[in-house]
Each structure stands twice: as structure tokens, then as C-alpha cells.
């Protein structure tokens, strides 16, 4: 049964230190309110999985010292430039980095979704990504002749964390077109979700909504968080706050500036509420 919680703070409490935490990219709704709660709690040793890439959600956790390891296809602030705290952490060797490529993340999560130990994937051969991954195997296509193919072990995150437009009290979460969120929920031991609103009734009773809904079966906990993706956006509800992200990019160029940002926008916001 899905727990219906009252705040992102409580969602954050369901994410233990050391967890393998799967997060969506900036453009699939990200539960920024929970990310800020994790920073406020001083979460430790998180292992972040980018599905498939990261932006400010990883920046805040990395810059705050919550992260031990990152596996992702990229970290970027998009038009607002490079991710300064990520870049710094790599250069200072503060985090372990596992570079990968988008479809390898999807394939490894699909393996977990399907209860398979692995999935094959084309591409990758001859890259330094493959050369530096000792957890992957270069094998043979059993139906080919001298046809090498890469095998990727399943990734089963401890928690998938994301934001969505709405959920009902049975734990069903409407995600519309953002089906990578469904794959994350299927593939993970727990899915923790903040939503713009919790609605009456059952989303699965409406054939149109059901088509874009993650069943409560896969959802451990939900909590309301209005504008919970801010400063990122939610498709069709509100847009990414580019001015704020530009401000973040500027402030986070130094650790001192980043700390000031956190004081104002992570700790300060909570204090103001």
C-alpha cells in the first residue's frame, strides 16, 4: 500500500543515507522540493543514477556533500552552461564518477524492470566509456558469427524519486508522456513521488488518464508539493525558471557562492515557510 505523506520532508525521510537514488533529467519532472529536503537533512553517501542525465538536482546534492558516487550520461545546466559543483567535484576527486551513455541507463533499468540479470546493447565498442567500465561485459551475439555485443548488468535503484502533476489516494500517479518515470518506478525497489495535487477518485478508472498512469503497486509513498519541481518545470503546468537557473550558475561558480545559494534558496526557503 502506498503511504500518503504530507510533505517533501517526509518523502526525504524515506530515502536513507547511502541509497542508490534514481532521478529523472531536468525536463521530466524532478522532485526539487525533496532534493532541497535532502540537503537540509544533510543526507550522506548517496549514489545518484541519472535517468539518463542530470542538471541542478545533482548539483545541489553534490555541492552540499551528500553524494559519494554518480552514474550518468551527462551533467549540465543546459543553456545556463556547465554544472559547476559537479565539475569541481570531479576535478577535486570528491565523487566517484561512472560515465555512461543514455541508452545504457535505459537498458539496465529495463533489465531490472523485466527481472532480467542483464540486457544486451549495440554501440559502445571502441569507446572509453566501455574501456573504463569493469562491470560491463563484451560478449558475442549468440545468433551471429564474430558479432561482438555489450552486456550490461541490471540496475535496481533503492529509490526512484520524481515529481508528477497528480496522484490519487490509491497511490496511482499520472505522468502522461514521461514514461521513463514509469520505467524508473518499475525498476526500483521503491518509488517516492511528490505531486502538484492529490485528486479524488481513482486515476485508473478513467481510460484516458489510465494510459499515462503508474499503478500504486509500484509507488511506496506520495506527498503533495505545489510547484515542487521549481526551479525546473512541469510540462503544460509551469516552465523552467531560466532566470533563476542563470543566477544559480553564476553563484555556484565557487563553493562559497554555492553555499550562499543554499542558505538563501534551500535553507532560507524552508525557514520562510
Amino acid at each position: 500500500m502506498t503511504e500518503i505523506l504530507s510533505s517533501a520532508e517526509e518523502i526525504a525521510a524515506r530515502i536513507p543515507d547511502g541509497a542508490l537514488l534514481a532521478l529523472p533529467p531536468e525536463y521530466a519532472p524532478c522532485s526539487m522540493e525533496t532534493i532541497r529536503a535532502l540537503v537540509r537533512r544533510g543526507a550522506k553517501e548517496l549514489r545518484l543514477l541519472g535517468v539518463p542525465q542530470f542538471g541542478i538536482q545533482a548539483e545541489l546534492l553534490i555541492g552540499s556533500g551528500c553524494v559519494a558516487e554518480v552514474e550518468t550520461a551527462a551533467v549540465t545546466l543546459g543553456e545556463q552552461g556547465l554544472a559547476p559543483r559537479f565539475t569541481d567535484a570531479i576535478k577535486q576527486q570528491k565523487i566517484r564518477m561512472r560515465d555512461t551513455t543514455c541508452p545504457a541507463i535505459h537498458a539496465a533499468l529495463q533489465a531490472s524492470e523485466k527481472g532480467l540479470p542483464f540486457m544486451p546493447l549495440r554501440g559502445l565498442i571502441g569507446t572509453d566509456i566501455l574501456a573504463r567500465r569493469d562491470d560491463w561485459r563484451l560478449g558475442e551475439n549468440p545468433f551471429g558469427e564474430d558479432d561482438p555485443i555489450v552486456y550490461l548488468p541490471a540496475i535496481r535503484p533503492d529509490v526512484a524519486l520524481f515529481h508528477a502533476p497528480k496522484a490519487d489516494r490509491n497511490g496511482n500517479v499520472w505522468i502522461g508522456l514521461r514514461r521513463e518515470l514509469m520505467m524508473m518506478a518499475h525498476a526500483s525497489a521503491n518509488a517516492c513521488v511528490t505531486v502538484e495535487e492529490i485528486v479524488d477518485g481513482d486515476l485508473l478508472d478513467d481510460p484516458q488518464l489510465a494510459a499515462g498512469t503508474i499503478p500504486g503497486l509500484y509507488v511506496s509513498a506520495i506527498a503533495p508539493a505545489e510547484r515542487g519541481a521549481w526551479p525546473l518545470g512541469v510540462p503544460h503546468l509551469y516552465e523552467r525558471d531560466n532566470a533563476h537557473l542563470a543566477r544559480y550558475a553564476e553563484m555556484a561558480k565557487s563553493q562559497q557562492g554555492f553555499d550562499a545559494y543554499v542558505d538563501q534558496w534551500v535553507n532560507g526557503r524552508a525557514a520562510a515557510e
Partner: protein
Amino acid sequence: MSGIRTEEIMIATIARMLSGLSHVAVGAASPVPGSAALLARRLSGGALRVSLLGRVSNPTFTDGARELFDCAAQGRIDAFFLSGVQIDGQANINLVSIGDPDKPKARFPGSFGSAYLYFLVPRVILFRQDHSPRALVPKVDYVSAPGVSEPNVYRPGGPYALVTGRCVFDFDKDAGRFRLGSVHSGHTVEEIEKETGFDFEMPDGAVVPETEMPSREWIDLIRGPVGEEIRETYPDFASRMFGKA
């Protein structure tokens, strides 16, 4: 027609390379190819399908982020676009780091889908506005995706051309290296040789052609409807290029 910007030459040049195709996809951090694809779609009368990562309106895909990659592997995407912080003469691209990856001098976002799509999409067009020996190097420090593969590696896709702020290189698949295709107006072959860190072949004829300039009509399309369309996904780029919305 004055005041044509380098980006506009690149957009028009890439758009010409998409003529006659059915479906092109545009990945992250690709405003110039994105604009080129949207221009090409208009020029095709809507026959060209354009899948733009990150766009909310007019989605092409409905099965999550993996669908782009699955679709490419099925052979349903004709062209894609990649860049690199370094690109070398064998069309290897590096999107990760300069120096030792474990203790890099510079770190960049990461490889995105390049390590997959470069193998699978028939016509991968490389783009890099900054044409300098720093960007176009003899050998990349990190191979995000290789330009060529051993014959037994499954690889229906690969590099087609490299469009920079100064010129166009065509990729010669058999030779496994670039050939200078054309030089943009205002630039010279000598300059290209000086600013390119890798060796490349020269075209067969005696004279290196000049890159075709976009027509008035194309410029109007780029600065008009294409600019408005790309703004949804790349607002900063659109403002910088075409002014505020």
C-alpha cells in the same frame, strides 16, 4: 545581404544535408542543428519529421526517453547531430574531459547518447562552431564515440560531415578521415590548415569551393518562423540570435 551570422551559415549548410530525408532527431545542446532541422522541415513542405529532444509541444515519441534510441536502432532515424569538446581526424569525439579522465584538467557534461547513436544513425552530422586547434585535435583525450569501427562491429551509422564556423569537412568512410568540402565566405584554405589540429584530405578539384550562402528566403525563414520554433527549446539561443520574444 549583410549581417549573415556564422550560425546562420551553419544552419543553412546542415539543412541542405537533410534534403530528401524522412526523419531527423536532434539531441541535447543542439540549437544550431535543431534550427537546421526545423528549416529543412519547412523546405520539405512538412514531409521531414523532426524529433527535438526537450520540446514539449508536437512530441514525436510517446514511449519515454528510450524511444529515441530504440527508434534509431530500428533504422527509423536518418540523421542525428553530435558535437565534441574535441574532435579528431578519425571523427572520434570527446564529450567528457581533457587530460586524464580520473583527474582531468577540464571536465565537460558527458557523452549523452553519442556512444550509441553514432553507431546506429546513418547520417551523423558533427558540428562545432569553434574551429581551432584546441577543438579539432590530432587525437581526442577520451573517446566518447569512435568515428570508425572494426569491420565486424555492427555499425549501420557513422559520421557524414563536420560543419564548423569556418568550413565543411566531408567524412570519407573508406579512408576513415575528413576531406575539406567547402570554405565559408570570408575564410581561406590557409586559415583552415592553420586552425585545424588534424590532417585532412583536399578535394579532388584544384579549387576549394565556397560554402553556399543562405538565400534571402532562407534567412527570412531562419530569422522568422524557425527562430520562433526553436525558442521553445532554446530560449537563450533564440534571444541571442534573433532578439527577445
